[in-house]
C-alpha cells in the first residue's frame, strides 16, 4: 500500500511469507545443513560417523566414474533442453488455436506426464527393442536399419533423451499454454487493427510476452536435467549401462547401495554448486531477454 509504515508492512510480509518460510527452514534447510556437515565425514549408517575433513571432495575430483557420469549428464542436457522447449512451445501454440477437440488433445499430451516411469520405461523398452520394437520397424519401412538403442552403449543416451522429451513435453506445454492464455487479448486486437499478420503477431507479441514462462521452463528444465535419474536407472539394458550412467545414479549408488553417506553427500554438493552457478548466470542474463510486459 502506498505510504504504509515500516512495521505494518513487515507484518504483512510476515503474514504472507511465514508459512512457506517456516516449512523451508524446518523441512529443507535443516536437513540440507545436516547433509553439508555430513560431507566432512565418512559414515556407513551402521557405525558412528568418522571425521575426514575434505577428503571426500578430493576423492570426487579423481573419481573417473563420477566424471564419466557428469559427461553423460551434460550430453543429455544439451540434447534434451532445447528439444523439449521447442516441441512443447509448438504444442502449446497448436493447443491455443480455436480447434475442436482441444480438451481431448490437451489430455492426450498430458497422459505421458502423469504416468510413472516405472510403467512407462517398460513400454519404451518394447518400442526401442532392436528386433521386435516399433521404432526400428518404422525405420525399416523407410529403409533405415535401426541401431541397438537400449542395448548399445553408444546409442542408449539418445534413446533416453527421446523418451524423456516424449514424457515431459506435455508438462512444459501446459506451462506455455497457461502463459499464452495469460497474454491479454487486447494486444492481439490492436495488432490486427494495425494490419499485422499472424507471423508478425507471433514474433512481436507472443514470443516477447511468453518470455517469463520461457525463462521458468528453461530454469526448471536445466535443473531437472542435472537431477535426471529414473529413466537412466530403469531403461538401459544391463550391458549398455556404461553408456548412460548419470550423476544422480552415482549419488544414489553411493548413498544407498555402497553405504557411503558422506561421500554421496559431497557429490550432491558438487552437483548443487554446478546447478547454482548456471542458475545465477541465467538470472543475470534474464534482464536482457525477459519482458514482463510490453
Amino acid at each position, binding site marked *: 500500500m502506498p505510504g504504509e509504515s515500516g512495521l505494518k508492512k513487515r507484518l504483512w510480509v510476515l503474514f504472507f511469507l511465514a508459512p512457506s518460510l517456516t516449512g523451508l527452514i524446518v523441512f529443507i534447510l535443516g536437513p540440507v545443513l545436516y547433509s553439508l556437515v555430513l560431507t566432512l565425514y565418512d559414515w556407513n*549408517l*551402521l557405525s558412528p560417523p568418522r571425521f575426514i575433513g575434505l577428503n571426500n571432495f578430493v576423492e570426487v575430483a579423481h573419481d573417473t566414474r563420477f566424471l564419466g557420469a557428469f559427461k553423460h549428464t551434460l550430453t543429455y542436457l544439451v540434447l534434451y533442453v532445447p528439444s523439449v522447449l521447442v516441441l512443447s512451445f509448438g504444442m502449446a501454440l497448436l493447443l491455443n488455436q480455436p480447434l475442436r477437440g482441444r480438451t481431448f488433445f490437451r489430455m492426450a499430451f498430458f497422459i505421458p506426464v502423469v504416468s510413472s516411469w516405472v510403467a512407462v520405461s517398460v513400454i519404451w523398452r518394447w518400442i526401442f527393442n532392436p*528386433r521386435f520394437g516399433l521404432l526400428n520397424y518404422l525405420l525399416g519401412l523407410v529403409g533405415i536399419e535401426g541401431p*541397438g538403442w*537400449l542395448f548399445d*552403449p553408444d546409442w542408449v543416451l539418445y534413446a533416453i533423451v527421446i523418451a524423456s522429451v516424449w514424457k515431459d513435453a506435455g508438462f512444459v506445454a501446459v506451462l506455455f499454454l497457461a502463459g499464452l492464455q495469460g497474454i491479454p487479448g487486447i494486444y492481439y486486437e490492436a495488432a490486427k487493427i494495425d494490419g499485422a499478420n499472424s507471423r508478425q503477431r507471433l514474433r512481436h507479441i507472443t514470443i516477447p510476452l511468453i518470455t517469463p514462462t520461457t525463462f521458468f521452463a528453461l530454469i526448471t528444465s536445466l535443473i531437472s536435467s542435472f537431477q535426471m535419474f529414473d529413466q537412466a536407472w530403469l531403461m538401459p539394458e*544391463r*550391458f549398455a549401462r556404461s553408456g548412460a550412467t548419470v550423476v544422480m545414479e552415482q549419488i544414489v549408488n553411493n548413498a544407498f547401495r*555402497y*553405504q557411503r553417506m558422506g561421500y554421496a553427500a559431497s557429490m550432491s554438493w558438487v552437483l548443487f554448486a554446478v546447478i547454482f552457478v548456471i542458475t545465477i548466470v541465467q538470472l543475470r542474463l534474464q534482464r536482457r531477454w525477459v519482458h514482463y510486459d510490453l
Partner: protein
Amino acid sequence: MSRKLLALTMLLALLVGLMPGTSLAQEPVTLKYATFTGSGDRAEELDQIIQAFQAENPHITIEVISAPFDDYFTMLQADFVAGEPPDVLELNYENFVAYAASGVLLDVSEYLDPETPYYPGALNAFKYQGAQMALPETFSTVVLYYNKDLFDQAGVAYPTADWTWDDALAAAEQIRALDDDIWGIYAPIQFWEFYKRAAQNGCSFFNEDMTESTINAPECVEALDVMMRFIETDVMPDPAESAGIPDTEMFQNGSVGMVVLGIWMFPAYADLPFEWDIELEPGIAQKAYHFFSNGVAIARDTEHPEEAALWAQFLTASETAATVRVENDWELPAINKPEYFEAFLSATPPANREVVFASLEAPVPPPVIERQSEMQDIFEDLLAAVVNGELDSQTALDMAKAEIDALLQ
C-alpha cells in the same frame, strides 16, 4: 514343619516363576520382524508360521515390517539410523557380513539350542569372527535345467553329473543346429556366475588374508574365457540377439536347450508343454555349486533377546516352518532332516531333485568384502565391456584387480 513346607513351596514357586519359558512371569512382548522374502505373495505363508509360533507362545506377538528386496536395505538402514531397529531381521548373506562387521547384531550363541539340526556348513556361513551372528533361514542353489524334447530331437545324450563345460558346449552346438531361433544354452555372464565359474577352475578372488585380490590369475582368466566361448561360438545369444527376453522366458518358450537357473523357478515351470529335468551343473577342473542363503539375525540393542531368539529359531528350524516352506516351494530350510523334505523330493517336475542336496557337497558362497556392492558393480561394468567386445579377458581382470585392491584399503 508346616512353616518349612510353606517356605519351601514359596521358594519353589519363585524359582519356577523366574525360569524362562514358563507362563508365570510372562509380560506380553511385541517383536518387530523385518523381512524381504515375506512380502507380496509370500506374506500369507509367513503368516502361517507366525500364527503357529504365537499359538505356542501366547505372550509374544510378531509385528511384520516388509519391503521388496530392492528397497529393503534402505529401509533397514533408515531404521537403524533412527535408533529404532527391528528386533529380528532377515539378511541375505552379502549384507550379513556388513551388518555383523558394524557390531549391530547380537551374538546368539547363548540362546541357541545345540540340538537344532542345522547343516553345519550353513551355520558356519553365518559366523563372524567366531561368533554366531545369525541363523541360516533358507538356502538355495543354481542347477542346470535342460529341455529333454530338444535333446531328443538333436539326438544328444542327457547331461550327467560329471559333465564339463566342454561337454555342454558340444551338446549346445548340436541343439543350436536344429533351428535359427533355437539356442543351445544360456549361462549368464554376470558376477554371480563368474565367481562360481572361477571356483570351478580353482581360482580364488582373494589371497589368504584378504589383503589383495588374485582375480587376474591365469585360472581366473581361463574361467572367463570358458564363459565367453558360448557367445563366441554362437550357441548362446549375445545381448542384442536375446533382445530383452530373459533366460527364464526363453526356457519357458522352449527356445533354449539348457539354462543355468535357480531352483526357485520350479513352481513357475510346473506346467511346461515339454519334458524337462535338472542336473548338477558342469565344472571345469573341479565342481563348485552356488550356495545362496538368507539368515535371520537379532539386533544387538533389542529389549527382548530371549523372545527374539525363540522366534528366530522357530522361523528357521521348526517343523511348521519347514513344512510351510516345502509345501509352497518357498526356498528350503537349511535343516538336515530328510523327513521334512519328502514332499519336496517326490514332486515332479523336475524328477531329479536329489541334485539340490547333492550341491551342498561343494558349495561356494559369494566372495564378500565390506564394500560388496561396489565390487559387484565393478564386475558388472567390466564384464559388460568384455561381452561388448571392448576389452579382452586378461585386461578386464587386470583392471578388476586394481579396482578391488583399492576397495580393500
